[in-house]
């Protein structure tokens, strides 16, 4: 399993686009923290920036953009590369003929994508915090640990997203089609609760920013348990589905 995971991470990072996207994330983080704080300071000098001061240009305030847009796209790309593309060009045989159970290989591929996402989050958080310090943003230990907590908690819904993307990637035969359908599904899932209000809170994509439930004002424990169970339920269903398809698929 360890060999499979190391191989999958190595294959993923061999695609330069993942390094480029991480570099773009770092640049955005620097821009957000540094220039944002400069703007706030400038407005403060003019005496009219209390709202901006309150919101702040912290790493936590940029997290929704990463969690709802960029990281899901990277997850889709990762799954399309490690599942769909390898089945399409038959390179999947390179690991399927090795003495490793198919379930472990599936897990290694999904975990490789998730490991990249975790590394991505860690890097942009670190860069954001360091840039904030350099640019003289007001930070307290409380805010700092809340930021770490927010970034760590964001991994949970993204893990569910990875299981979902892996399942779709395994069912379809073309990487382009996988990307198109996954992006479309993300848009549909975002629009569904607006069109059908009874679905509000029932889709896993509603909780990409669930860290907000845990950080700051704490909601009733019942709600948090409900949300946690919804995420676990979706995650288990997608993972099980993916494992079954991966296990039974002919190459």
């Amino acid at each position, binding site marked *: 399993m360890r*060999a499979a995971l190391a191989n999958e991470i190595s294959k993923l990072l061999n695609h330069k686009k993942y390094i480029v996207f991480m570099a773009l994330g770092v640049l955005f983080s620097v821009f957000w923290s540094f220039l944002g704080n400069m703007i706030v300071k400038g407005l403060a000098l003019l005496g009219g920036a209390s709202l901006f001061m309150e919101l702040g240009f912290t790493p936590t305030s940029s997290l929704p953009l990463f969690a709802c847009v960029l990281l899901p796209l990277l997850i889709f790309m990762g799954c399309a590369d490690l599942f769909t593309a390898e089945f399409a060009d038959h390179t999947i045989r390179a690991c399927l003929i090795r003495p490793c159970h198919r379930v472990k290989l599936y897990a290694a591929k999904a975990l490789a994508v998730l490991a990249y996402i975790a590394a991505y989050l860690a890097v942009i958080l670190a860069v954001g915090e360091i840039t904030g310090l350099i640019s003289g943003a007001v930070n307290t230990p409380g805010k700092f640990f809340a930021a770490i907590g927010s970034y760590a908690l964001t991994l949970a819904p993204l893990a569910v997203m990875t299981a979902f993307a892996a399942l779709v990637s395994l069912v379809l035969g073309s990487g382009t089609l996988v990307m198109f359908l996954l992006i479309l599904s993300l848009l549909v899932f975002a629009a569904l609760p607006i069109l059908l209000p009874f679905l509000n809170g029932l889709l896993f994509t509603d909780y990409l920013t669930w860290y907000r439930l845990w950080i700051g004002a704490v909601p009733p424990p019942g709600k948090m348990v409900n949300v946690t169970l919804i995420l676990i339920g979706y995650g288990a269903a997608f993972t099980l589905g993916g494992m079954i398809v991966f296990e039974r698929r002919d*190459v």
Partner: protein
Amino acid sequence: MLTADGLTKLYKNGRGAREVTFCVEGGEVMGLLGPNGSGKTTVMKACVGLVLPTAGRAAIGGHDVVTRREAALAGVGALIESPALFDRLTARRNLEMAAAYYPELPGGRVDEVLAIVELERYPKDKVLSFSLGMRQRLGVALALLSRPSVLILDEPANGLDIEGMVAIREIVKNAAASGAAVLISSHLAHEIELSATKVGVMHDGMLLKTATMAEVLTVSPSLEDYYLAEVQNYRKGRLSA
């Protein structure tokens, strides 16, 4: 030892392999001979678990390939259809990634197999730049990497020049001499005749006949004649039925 017992794999289009039964012992080279589409590759895929059998079973060293996958594949080296290579990676990296699944392999094994297939001058070249023959050689190197006790090579001579074909024959013979059970396939009777100790004639997804090469050459002047006679008998049998 590699065994197939009533091995059947039928695809949605009705093609595949039906009730194939054979056994390859250590030291034997069994050649599957048949035209394209006769089911040779399907049988080999089922033997390494790349496809799930519709019925029957394949076992390696007594371990069922489906239910005891890890144990069964621990001693197998295989090249099925075209080599599964990552074009963006170097020849060495492709081998190192495969070697990671065998922690007991000595460090120098990658260089050893590169030398066996005469690719030792290109370890740092990306596979993308390789010719068809070099890719095939690297595919064979990947199959040999784990010092397999069962070696499965599907049309290993594909894309190889004369020297390459001779080298593959030597590799197959050496593997068998060191005690490995070897299963190779080809649609070229001459290739099988030069490498195999035992032959299986495949046609229409069925294994029509299995015989040792000595038996084949006793009843026919060549494997080609033997094959043609067996296929003709099969067709006559179908017509009369």
